[in-house]
Protein backbone atom coordinates (compact mmCIF):
# COMPACT_ATOMS: atom_id res chain seq x y z
CA UNK A 1 0.00 0.00 0.00
CA UNK A 2 1.45 3.34 -0.97
CA UNK A 3 0.57 6.21 1.30
CA UNK A 4 0.97 9.95 0.92
CA UNK A 5 2.58 12.01 3.67
CA UNK A 6 -0.87 13.25 4.67
CA UNK A 7 -2.41 9.84 5.07
CA UNK A 8 0.75 8.51 6.78
CA UNK A 9 0.34 11.28 9.34
CA UNK A 10 -3.37 10.50 9.70
CA UNK A 11 -2.41 6.87 10.37
CA UNK A 12 0.13 7.82 13.04
CA UNK A 13 -2.25 10.10 14.93
CA UNK A 14 -5.26 7.85 14.29
CA UNK A 15 -3.46 4.74 15.54
CA UNK A 16 -2.44 6.54 18.75
CA UNK A 17 -6.08 7.35 19.44
CA UNK A 18 -7.40 3.92 18.41
CA UNK A 19 -4.92 1.88 20.45
CA UNK A 20 -5.22 3.98 23.60
CA UNK A 21 -9.00 3.89 23.24
CA UNK A 22 -8.89 0.09 23.22
CA UNK A 23 -6.56 -0.08 26.21
CA UNK A 24 -8.83 2.24 28.24
CA UNK A 25 -11.83 0.17 27.20
CA UNK A 26 -10.18 -2.83 28.88
CA UNK A 27 -10.96 -1.17 32.23
CA UNK A 28 -14.70 -1.59 31.63
CA UNK A 29 -16.08 -3.81 34.36
CA UNK A 30 -13.03 -3.63 36.61
CA UNK A 31 -12.15 -0.01 37.34
CA UNK A 32 -11.47 0.80 41.01
CA UNK A 33 -14.70 2.82 41.44
CA UNK A 34 -17.83 3.36 39.38
CA UNK A 35 -16.98 6.99 38.61
CA UNK A 36 -13.64 5.93 37.11
CA UNK A 37 -15.30 3.19 35.12
CA UNK A 38 -17.44 5.88 33.51
CA UNK A 39 -14.61 8.38 33.17
CA UNK A 40 -12.22 5.97 31.45
CA UNK A 41 -14.96 4.75 29.10
CA UNK A 42 -15.81 8.36 28.22
CA UNK A 43 -12.18 9.19 27.49
CA UNK A 44 -11.94 6.02 25.39
CA UNK A 45 -15.03 7.11 23.44
CA UNK A 46 -13.55 10.54 22.71
CA UNK A 47 -10.38 8.86 21.44
CA UNK A 48 -12.36 6.41 19.33
CA UNK A 49 -14.21 9.31 17.71
CA UNK A 50 -10.90 10.98 16.87
CA UNK A 51 -9.54 7.68 15.53
CA UNK A 52 -12.55 7.25 13.23
CA UNK A 53 -12.08 10.69 11.68
CA UNK A 54 -8.32 10.28 11.29
CA UNK A 55 -8.40 6.73 9.91
CA UNK A 56 -11.15 7.75 7.48
CA UNK A 57 -8.72 10.37 6.16
CA UNK A 58 -6.23 7.56 5.47
CA UNK A 59 -8.61 4.98 4.01
CA UNK A 60 -11.42 2.68 5.11
CA UNK A 61 -11.65 2.92 8.90
CA UNK A 62 -12.76 -0.68 9.48
CA UNK A 63 -10.15 -2.20 7.19
CA UNK A 64 -7.44 -0.12 8.80
CA UNK A 65 -8.52 -0.96 12.35
CA UNK A 66 -9.34 -4.62 11.95
CA UNK A 67 -7.34 -6.00 9.05
CA UNK A 68 -3.86 -4.57 9.41
CA UNK A 69 -1.01 -6.63 10.83
CA UNK A 70 0.97 -5.43 13.81
CA UNK A 71 3.84 -4.07 11.72
CA UNK A 72 1.48 -1.80 9.77
CA UNK A 73 0.37 0.11 12.89
CA UNK A 74 2.09 3.45 13.40
CA UNK A 75 1.13 4.25 16.99
CA UNK A 76 3.53 5.21 19.74
CA UNK A 77 4.69 2.35 21.93
CA UNK A 78 3.49 4.31 24.97
CA UNK A 79 -0.20 3.90 24.14
CA UNK A 80 0.05 0.14 23.61
CA UNK A 81 1.54 -0.48 27.07
CA UNK A 82 -0.74 -2.63 29.25
CA UNK A 83 -2.98 -0.90 31.78
CA UNK A 84 -1.02 -2.24 34.76
CA UNK A 85 -2.36 -0.98 38.06
CA UNK A 86 -4.43 2.21 38.18
CA UNK A 87 -1.27 4.29 38.70
CA UNK A 88 0.21 2.96 35.44
CA UNK A 89 -2.94 3.89 33.57
CA UNK A 90 -2.88 7.37 35.07
CA UNK A 91 0.83 7.88 34.29
CA UNK A 92 0.19 6.80 30.69
CA UNK A 93 -2.76 9.21 30.56
CA UNK A 94 -0.69 12.07 31.98
CA UNK A 95 2.13 11.59 29.49
CA UNK A 96 -0.10 11.06 26.45
CA UNK A 97 -2.89 13.58 27.12
CA UNK A 98 -0.34 16.34 27.75
CA UNK A 99 1.33 15.46 24.43
CA UNK A 100 -1.95 15.24 22.56
CA UNK A 101 -3.28 18.53 23.92
CA UNK A 102 -0.09 20.41 22.98
CA UNK A 103 0.02 18.78 19.53
CA UNK A 104 -3.67 19.37 18.76
CA UNK A 105 -3.47 22.97 19.97
CA UNK A 106 -0.66 23.55 17.46
CA UNK A 107 -2.54 21.81 14.65
CA UNK A 108 -5.75 23.70 15.47
CA UNK A 109 -3.92 27.01 15.16
CA UNK A 110 -2.72 26.15 11.65
CA UNK A 111 -4.68 25.73 8.45
CA UNK A 112 -3.63 22.20 7.52
CA UNK A 113 -5.88 19.22 6.89
CA UNK A 114 -5.90 18.28 10.60
CA UNK A 115 -7.01 21.72 11.83
CA UNK A 116 -10.80 21.06 11.94
CA UNK A 117 -10.44 17.82 13.91
CA UNK A 118 -7.72 19.24 16.17
CA UNK A 119 -9.84 22.30 17.01
CA UNK A 120 -12.66 20.01 18.05
CA UNK A 121 -10.57 17.38 19.83
CA UNK A 122 -8.31 19.72 21.77
CA UNK A 123 -11.28 20.70 23.93
CA UNK A 124 -12.02 17.06 24.73
CA UNK A 125 -8.38 16.27 25.39
CA UNK A 126 -8.12 19.19 27.82
CA UNK A 127 -10.59 17.30 30.01
CA UNK A 128 -8.49 14.12 29.68
CA UNK A 129 -5.40 16.00 30.78
CA UNK A 130 -7.24 17.56 33.71
CA UNK A 131 -8.45 14.11 34.76
CA UNK A 132 -4.91 12.69 34.61
CA UNK A 133 -3.43 15.63 36.51
CA UNK A 134 -6.00 15.47 39.30
CA UNK A 135 -5.30 11.76 39.78
CA UNK A 136 -1.54 12.24 39.61
CA UNK A 137 -1.82 14.79 42.42
CA UNK A 138 -4.15 12.59 44.41
CA UNK A 139 -2.03 9.45 44.08
CA UNK A 140 1.41 11.08 44.32
CA UNK A 141 0.43 13.23 47.29
CA UNK A 142 -1.76 10.56 48.89
CA UNK A 143 -0.77 7.62 51.06
CA UNK A 144 2.68 6.07 51.22
CA UNK A 145 1.36 3.18 49.13
CA UNK A 146 -0.23 5.36 46.43
CA UNK A 147 2.87 7.58 46.28
CA UNK A 148 5.10 4.54 45.83
CA UNK A 149 2.93 3.07 43.08
CA UNK A 150 2.60 6.37 41.22
CA UNK A 151 6.38 6.89 41.38
CA UNK A 152 6.98 3.38 40.06
CA UNK A 153 4.49 3.92 37.19
CA UNK A 154 5.96 7.29 36.16
CA UNK A 155 9.45 5.81 36.10
CA UNK A 156 8.41 2.66 34.23
CA UNK A 157 6.79 4.60 31.38
CA UNK A 158 9.35 7.40 31.18
CA UNK A 159 11.45 5.66 28.53
CA UNK A 160 8.46 5.61 26.17
CA UNK A 161 8.10 9.40 26.19
CA UNK A 162 11.02 10.41 23.94
CA UNK A 163 9.41 8.75 20.95
CA UNK A 164 6.48 11.17 21.02
CA UNK A 165 8.65 13.94 19.62
CA UNK A 166 10.06 12.15 16.59
CA UNK A 167 8.83 14.30 13.70
CA UNK A 168 5.89 12.80 11.84
CA UNK A 169 6.00 13.53 8.12
CA UNK A 170 2.98 15.58 7.15
CA UNK A 171 2.48 17.06 10.64
CA UNK A 172 3.71 20.61 10.49
CA UNK A 173 4.68 21.56 14.04
CA UNK A 174 7.91 22.49 15.80
CA UNK A 175 8.65 19.20 17.56
CA UNK A 176 11.45 20.50 19.72
CA UNK A 177 9.26 23.34 21.08
CA UNK A 178 6.53 20.77 21.67
CA UNK A 179 8.94 18.63 23.69
CA UNK A 180 10.06 21.60 25.79
CA UNK A 181 6.45 22.50 26.59
CA UNK A 182 5.65 18.88 27.39
CA UNK A 183 8.58 18.54 29.80
CA UNK A 184 7.64 21.79 31.56
CA UNK A 185 3.99 20.79 31.92
CA UNK A 186 4.60 17.22 33.10
CA UNK A 187 7.42 18.24 35.45
CA UNK A 188 5.21 20.88 37.09
CA UNK A 189 2.45 18.34 37.74
CA UNK A 190 4.89 15.74 39.11
CA UNK A 191 6.45 18.29 41.45
CA UNK A 192 3.05 19.39 42.75
CA UNK A 193 2.29 15.70 43.30
CA UNK A 194 5.49 15.46 45.44
CA UNK A 195 6.95 13.08 42.84
CA UNK A 196 10.44 13.33 41.40
CA UNK A 197 10.75 13.86 37.67
CA UNK A 198 12.19 10.51 36.47
CA UNK A 199 15.89 10.67 35.62
CA UNK A 200 16.12 7.78 33.17
CA UNK A 201 16.84 8.33 29.47
CA UNK A 202 14.03 9.28 27.13
CA UNK A 203 15.90 8.65 23.88
CA UNK A 204 18.81 6.53 22.71
CA UNK A 205 19.82 3.13 24.03
CA UNK A 206 17.46 1.36 26.41
CA UNK A 207 14.52 3.49 25.42
CA UNK A 208 11.53 2.82 23.23
CA UNK A 209 11.24 4.50 19.92
CA UNK A 210 10.14 2.68 16.83
CA UNK A 211 6.35 2.54 17.03
CA UNK A 212 6.07 5.10 14.24
CA UNK A 213 8.17 2.74 12.08
CA UNK A 214 5.91 -0.23 12.84
CA UNK A 215 7.98 -1.91 15.56
CA UNK A 216 5.94 -2.68 18.64
CA UNK A 217 6.33 -4.20 22.07
CA UNK A 218 5.26 -7.73 22.91
CA UNK A 219 1.92 -6.90 24.61
CA UNK A 220 0.65 -5.14 21.47
CA UNK A 221 0.23 -8.35 19.46
CA UNK A 222 -2.03 -9.82 22.11
CA UNK A 223 -4.04 -6.62 22.28
CA UNK A 224 -4.52 -6.61 18.50
CA UNK A 225 -5.55 -10.27 18.53
CA UNK A 226 -8.36 -9.44 20.92
CA UNK A 227 -9.35 -6.24 19.13
CA UNK A 228 -9.46 -7.84 15.67
CA UNK A 229 -10.68 -11.31 16.56
CA UNK A 230 -14.41 -10.79 16.03
CA UNK A 231 -14.06 -8.92 12.75
CA UNK A 232 -11.63 -11.47 11.33
CA UNK A 233 -13.71 -14.46 12.48
CA UNK A 234 -16.93 -13.10 11.01
CA UNK A 235 -16.01 -10.98 7.97
CA UNK A 236 -18.75 -8.58 6.95
CA UNK A 237 -20.93 -9.34 9.98
CA UNK A 238 -23.18 -6.54 11.18
CA UNK A 239 -25.56 -5.93 14.09
Amino acid at each position, binding site marked *: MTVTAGSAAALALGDDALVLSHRLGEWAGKAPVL*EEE*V*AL*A*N*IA*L*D*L*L*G*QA*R*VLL*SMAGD*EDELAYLREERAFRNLQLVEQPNGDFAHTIARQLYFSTYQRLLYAELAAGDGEF*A*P*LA*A*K*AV*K*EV*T*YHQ*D*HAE*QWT*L*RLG*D*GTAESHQRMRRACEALWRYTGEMFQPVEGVDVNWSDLETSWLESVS*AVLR*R*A*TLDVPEGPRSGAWTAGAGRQGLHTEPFGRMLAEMQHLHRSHPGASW
Partner: protein
Amino acid sequence: MVTRTTPIEEEATLLGEETTVLEEELRRLAGSVPDPELPVLSLEELGVLRAVHVRGGGAVEVELTPTYTGCPAVEAMSADIARVLHEHGVPQVTVQTVLSPAWTTDDISDEGRRKLREFGIAPPRTQRATGPVPISLGPTRTAARAPDRMADAPPDASLEADPVRCPHCGSADTELLSRFSSTACKALRRCLSCREPFDHFKEL
Protein backbone atom coordinates in the same frame (compact mmCIF):
# COMPACT_ATOMS: atom_id res chain seq x y z
CA MET B 1 -18.20 9.84 7.72
CA VAL B 2 -21.85 9.31 8.56
CA THR B 3 -23.83 9.43 5.40
CA ARG B 4 -27.31 8.21 4.90
CA THR B 5 -29.41 8.35 1.79
CA THR B 6 -33.02 7.45 1.35
CA PRO B 7 -33.93 5.82 -1.95
CA ILE B 8 -35.35 8.03 -4.61
CA GLU B 9 -38.97 7.00 -4.90
CA GLU B 10 -40.32 9.66 -7.17
CA GLU B 11 -39.07 12.42 -9.37
CA ALA B 12 -38.35 15.48 -7.32
CA THR B 13 -40.72 18.39 -7.59
CA LEU B 14 -38.57 20.78 -5.61
CA LEU B 15 -37.23 23.65 -7.61
CA GLY B 16 -33.91 25.36 -7.47
CA GLU B 17 -35.62 28.77 -7.29
CA GLU B 18 -36.54 30.43 -4.03
CA THR B 19 -34.33 28.04 -2.17
CA THR B 20 -34.12 30.36 0.80
CA VAL B 21 -37.75 29.95 1.76
CA LEU B 22 -37.72 26.24 1.07
CA GLU B 23 -34.45 25.72 2.86
CA GLU B 24 -35.74 27.62 5.86
CA GLU B 25 -38.79 25.40 6.00
CA LEU B 26 -36.68 22.23 5.66
CA ARG B 27 -34.31 23.53 8.30
CA ARG B 28 -37.24 24.09 10.63
CA LEU B 29 -38.34 20.49 10.06
CA ALA B 30 -34.85 19.06 10.53
CA GLY B 31 -34.27 21.28 13.54
CA SER B 32 -37.44 20.06 15.24
CA VAL B 33 -36.06 16.51 15.46
CA PRO B 34 -35.49 15.63 19.13
CA ASP B 35 -32.02 14.74 20.37
CA PRO B 36 -31.93 10.94 20.75
CA GLU B 37 -30.29 11.07 24.19
CA LEU B 38 -31.92 14.25 25.55
CA PRO B 39 -35.34 14.18 23.90
CA VAL B 40 -36.42 17.38 25.66
CA LEU B 41 -34.06 19.23 23.35
CA SER B 42 -34.48 19.67 19.62
CA LEU B 43 -31.44 19.55 17.36
CA GLU B 44 -31.94 23.27 16.65
CA GLU B 45 -31.87 24.08 20.38
CA LEU B 46 -28.80 21.89 20.85
CA GLY B 47 -27.12 23.88 18.09
CA VAL B 48 -25.83 20.92 16.08
CA LEU B 49 -27.76 21.64 12.86
CA ARG B 50 -25.47 23.69 10.67
CA ALA B 51 -27.17 24.04 7.29
CA VAL B 52 -29.75 22.63 4.91
CA HIS B 53 -29.08 22.89 1.18
CA VAL B 54 -31.48 22.00 -1.57
CA ARG B 55 -29.58 20.45 -4.45
CA GLY B 56 -30.91 19.67 -7.90
CA GLY B 57 -33.24 16.77 -8.52
CA GLY B 58 -34.98 16.88 -5.16
CA ALA B 59 -31.87 16.04 -3.21
CA VAL B 60 -31.44 17.73 0.15
CA GLU B 61 -28.14 17.94 1.93
CA VAL B 62 -28.07 18.49 5.68
CA GLU B 63 -24.94 19.51 7.59
CA LEU B 64 -24.72 18.26 11.14
CA THR B 65 -21.92 18.80 13.66
CA PRO B 66 -21.25 16.38 16.54
CA THR B 67 -21.16 17.59 20.16
CA TYR B 68 -18.18 15.32 20.85
CA THR B 69 -16.04 13.75 18.12
CA GLY B 70 -17.03 10.27 19.27
CA CYS B 71 -20.68 11.04 19.98
CA PRO B 72 -22.57 7.86 19.06
CA ALA B 73 -25.85 9.79 18.77
CA VAL B 74 -24.84 11.30 15.43
CA GLU B 75 -25.95 8.24 13.51
CA ALA B 76 -29.37 8.23 15.19
CA MET B 77 -29.72 11.97 14.55
CA SER B 78 -28.91 11.48 10.87
CA ALA B 79 -31.45 8.68 10.53
CA ASP B 80 -34.14 10.74 12.31
CA ILE B 81 -33.53 13.78 10.11
CA ALA B 82 -33.67 11.67 6.95
CA ARG B 83 -36.92 10.06 8.12
CA VAL B 84 -38.62 13.37 8.98
CA LEU B 85 -37.65 15.03 5.71
CA HIS B 86 -38.64 11.91 3.82
CA GLU B 87 -42.07 11.98 5.48
CA HIS B 88 -42.44 15.57 4.28
CA GLY B 89 -41.87 14.60 0.68
CA VAL B 90 -38.15 14.99 0.24
CA PRO B 91 -37.10 11.97 -1.81
CA GLN B 92 -33.37 12.07 -1.21
CA VAL B 93 -31.62 13.17 1.97
CA THR B 94 -27.90 13.19 2.61
CA VAL B 95 -26.64 14.05 6.09
CA GLN B 96 -23.03 15.11 6.28
CA THR B 97 -20.99 15.45 9.44
CA VAL B 98 -18.97 18.66 9.58
CA LEU B 99 -16.36 19.36 12.26
CA SER B 100 -15.49 22.97 11.60
CA PRO B 101 -16.21 25.34 13.23
CA ALA B 102 -16.25 23.10 16.29
CA TRP B 103 -19.46 22.90 18.30
CA THR B 104 -19.38 24.51 21.71
CA THR B 105 -21.89 24.47 24.55
CA ASP B 106 -22.40 28.18 23.84
CA ASP B 107 -24.32 26.97 20.75
CA ILE B 108 -27.13 25.67 22.98
CA SER B 109 -29.96 28.19 22.79
CA ASP B 110 -31.47 29.97 25.82
CA GLU B 111 -34.64 27.95 25.30
CA GLY B 112 -32.49 24.80 25.23
CA ARG B 113 -30.85 25.77 28.52
CA ARG B 114 -34.22 26.37 30.14
CA LYS B 115 -35.44 22.94 29.01
CA LEU B 116 -32.30 21.23 30.29
CA ARG B 117 -32.80 22.80 33.72
CA GLU B 118 -36.46 21.71 33.78
CA PHE B 119 -35.34 18.20 32.84
CA GLY B 120 -33.04 18.13 35.88
CA ILE B 121 -29.75 18.80 34.10
CA ALA B 122 -27.74 21.88 35.04
CA PRO B 123 -27.09 23.72 31.78
CA PRO B 124 -23.54 24.64 30.74
CA ARG B 125 -22.29 28.04 31.80
CA THR B 126 -21.61 30.52 29.04
CA GLN B 127 -17.90 30.66 28.41
CA ARG B 128 -15.93 33.84 28.33
CA ALA B 129 -12.77 32.06 27.26
CA THR B 130 -12.67 28.86 25.23
CA GLY B 131 -11.88 25.52 26.77
CA PRO B 132 -13.02 23.77 29.92
CA VAL B 133 -13.33 25.51 33.25
CA PRO B 134 -10.63 24.40 35.70
CA ILE B 135 -12.08 22.40 38.55
CA SER B 136 -10.34 20.36 41.21
CA LEU B 137 -10.84 17.57 43.70
CA GLY B 138 -10.53 18.40 47.40
CA PRO B 139 -7.11 19.31 48.78
CA THR B 140 -4.41 16.65 48.74
CA ARG B 141 -2.63 15.79 52.00
CA THR B 142 0.12 18.31 51.43
CA ALA B 143 -2.35 21.06 50.64
CA ALA B 144 -4.38 20.24 53.73
CA ARG B 145 -1.24 20.44 55.89
CA ALA B 146 0.27 23.54 54.31
CA PRO B 147 -2.14 25.38 52.00
CA ASP B 148 0.47 27.95 50.96
CA ARG B 149 2.50 25.22 49.24
CA MET B 150 -0.27 24.87 46.70
CA ALA B 151 -0.12 28.49 45.62
CA ASP B 152 0.80 27.40 42.10
CA ALA B 153 -2.38 25.35 41.72
CA PRO B 154 -4.82 26.67 39.12
CA PRO B 155 -7.32 29.08 40.66
CA ASP B 156 -10.99 28.25 40.89
CA ALA B 157 -12.01 31.86 40.43
CA SER B 158 -14.15 31.18 37.37
CA LEU B 159 -16.06 28.50 39.25
CA GLU B 160 -16.75 30.77 42.22
CA ALA B 161 -17.76 33.65 39.99
CA ASP B 162 -20.36 31.55 38.20
CA PRO B 163 -21.29 28.48 40.23
CA VAL B 164 -23.14 25.49 38.80
CA ARG B 165 -26.62 25.73 40.30
CA CYS B 166 -28.72 22.79 41.38
CA PRO B 167 -31.48 22.31 38.76
CA HIS B 168 -33.86 21.12 41.51
CA CYS B 169 -33.62 23.78 44.23
CA GLY B 170 -31.47 26.46 42.59
CA SER B 171 -28.78 26.39 45.26
CA ALA B 172 -25.30 27.48 44.25
CA ASP B 173 -23.82 25.23 46.91
CA THR B 174 -22.99 22.17 44.79
CA GLU B 175 -19.97 19.90 44.51
CA LEU B 176 -18.39 17.80 41.77
CA LEU B 177 -18.67 14.03 42.21
CA SER B 178 -17.16 13.01 38.88
CA ARG B 179 -16.12 15.03 35.85
CA PHE B 180 -17.43 12.28 33.57
CA SER B 181 -21.01 11.04 33.81
CA SER B 182 -23.69 9.08 31.94
CA THR B 183 -22.67 10.55 28.59
CA ALA B 184 -19.49 12.24 27.37
CA CYS B 185 -21.09 15.68 27.59
CA LYS B 186 -22.06 15.56 31.25
CA ALA B 187 -20.40 15.69 34.68
CA LEU B 188 -21.96 14.32 37.87
CA ARG B 189 -22.54 16.77 40.74
CA ARG B 190 -24.38 16.82 44.05
CA CYS B 191 -26.35 19.63 45.67
CA LEU B 192 -25.22 20.33 49.24
CA SER B 193 -28.51 22.09 50.05
CA CYS B 194 -31.14 19.56 48.92
CA ARG B 195 -28.65 16.63 48.72
CA GLU B 196 -29.87 15.57 45.27
CA PRO B 197 -27.28 14.34 42.78
CA PHE B 198 -27.64 15.82 39.30
CA ASP B 199 -26.00 15.88 35.87
CA HIS B 200 -24.24 19.01 34.66
CA PHE B 201 -23.88 19.61 30.93
CA LYS B 202 -20.21 20.51 31.11
CA GLU B 203 -18.69 23.39 29.22
CA LEU B 204 -16.97 22.53 25.95
